[in-house]
């Protein structure tokens, strides 16, 4: 299907035959979207998965006039309409359900800052390779503004580190810099009494 490319939905149409059609912009997408399972993200929150039938071709339109807009359809029930997505970010992304669940469950960790709400788990990476004792995860903003949020933690020492930037490379650099300096103390609210 579309690899890791995402569809930023601009409008939704509910056809008489029961199909729901999404029209949205795609950057670096495949030549043609085939059928496949896509995750639905509304304002960065995973809302479930749908089976897309594939891409729709528009007849009688001038060649090259389609621009970046593409149309895909599903026969799955989809409750949102154009009014309910107005001024909101609706993204379709070919994310395996297991990864979607991972981001849904582990967004908020005790003692750590949560990623911004519009960020989703980056299915391609868990962040850079970290020194012994450190663990981490990676989040990306799949909207137009982009952005990468990396975080790392060391359970043995109770230290945490973050990298937040417009690009993955910069976020990675900031995170590794923080980790190498020992990181910050994890803040537990309320503090755990001994």
């Amino acid at each position, binding site marked *: 299907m579309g690899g890791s490319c995402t569809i930023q939905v601009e409008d939704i149409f509910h056809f008489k035959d029961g199909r729901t059609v999404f029209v949205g912009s795609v950057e670096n997408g495949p030549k043609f979207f085939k059928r496949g399972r896509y995750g639905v993200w509304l304002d960065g929150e995973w809302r479930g998965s749908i089976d897309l039938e594939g891409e729709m071709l528009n*007849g009688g339109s001038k060649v090259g006039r389609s621009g970046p807009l593409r149309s895909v359809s599903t026969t799955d029930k989809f409750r949102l309409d154009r009014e309910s997505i107005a001024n909101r970010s609706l993204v379709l992304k070919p994310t395996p359900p297991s990864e979607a669940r991972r981001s849904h469950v582990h967004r908020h960790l005790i003692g750590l800052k949560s990623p911004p709400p519009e960020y989703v788990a980056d299915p391609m990476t868990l962040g850079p390779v970290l020194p012994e004792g450190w663990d981490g995860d990676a989040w990306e903003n799949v909207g137009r503004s982009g952005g990468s949020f990396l975080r790392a933690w060391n359970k043995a020492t109770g230290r945490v580190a973050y990298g937040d930037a417009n690009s993955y490379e910069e976020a990675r650099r900031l995170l590794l810099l923080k980790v190498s300096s020992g990181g910050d103390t994890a803040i537990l609210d309320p503090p755990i009494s001994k």
Partner: protein
Amino acid sequence: MAKLERGYEPASQELPRLVLEKRRQIEFAEEGSDDLRYLDYRAANANVGGPTCKHILLRKDPGKIEVLEEFLHGTQYRCRVIDRLGFDGAEVHVKEFMIRHQRLMRLSVEDVEILYRLLKGG
């Protein structure tokens, strides 16, 4: 909405029936429906979709070339032309095919001119 370049010759009543016989589904976009809003939004005369490009959506008064083009997109899908050429490539390919086979499809001079104009884009 951008001005539509409609087909010159209207589709005969027989043509959609023949298309249906080739295992395609046809829907006509009704006034006030999301189907019609979609066609207007995409500035399209017609549309084809579904898992194997066999669901055809037409405006109420389809032109002959509009019905034929949507039908041929299904054939393109089956022959993997869409896989090979992609979304925009398939649009070019189908129009060139129709121009090359204009006599076989008995297209009018006016419709062939329209196909040339659509090919040029715009």
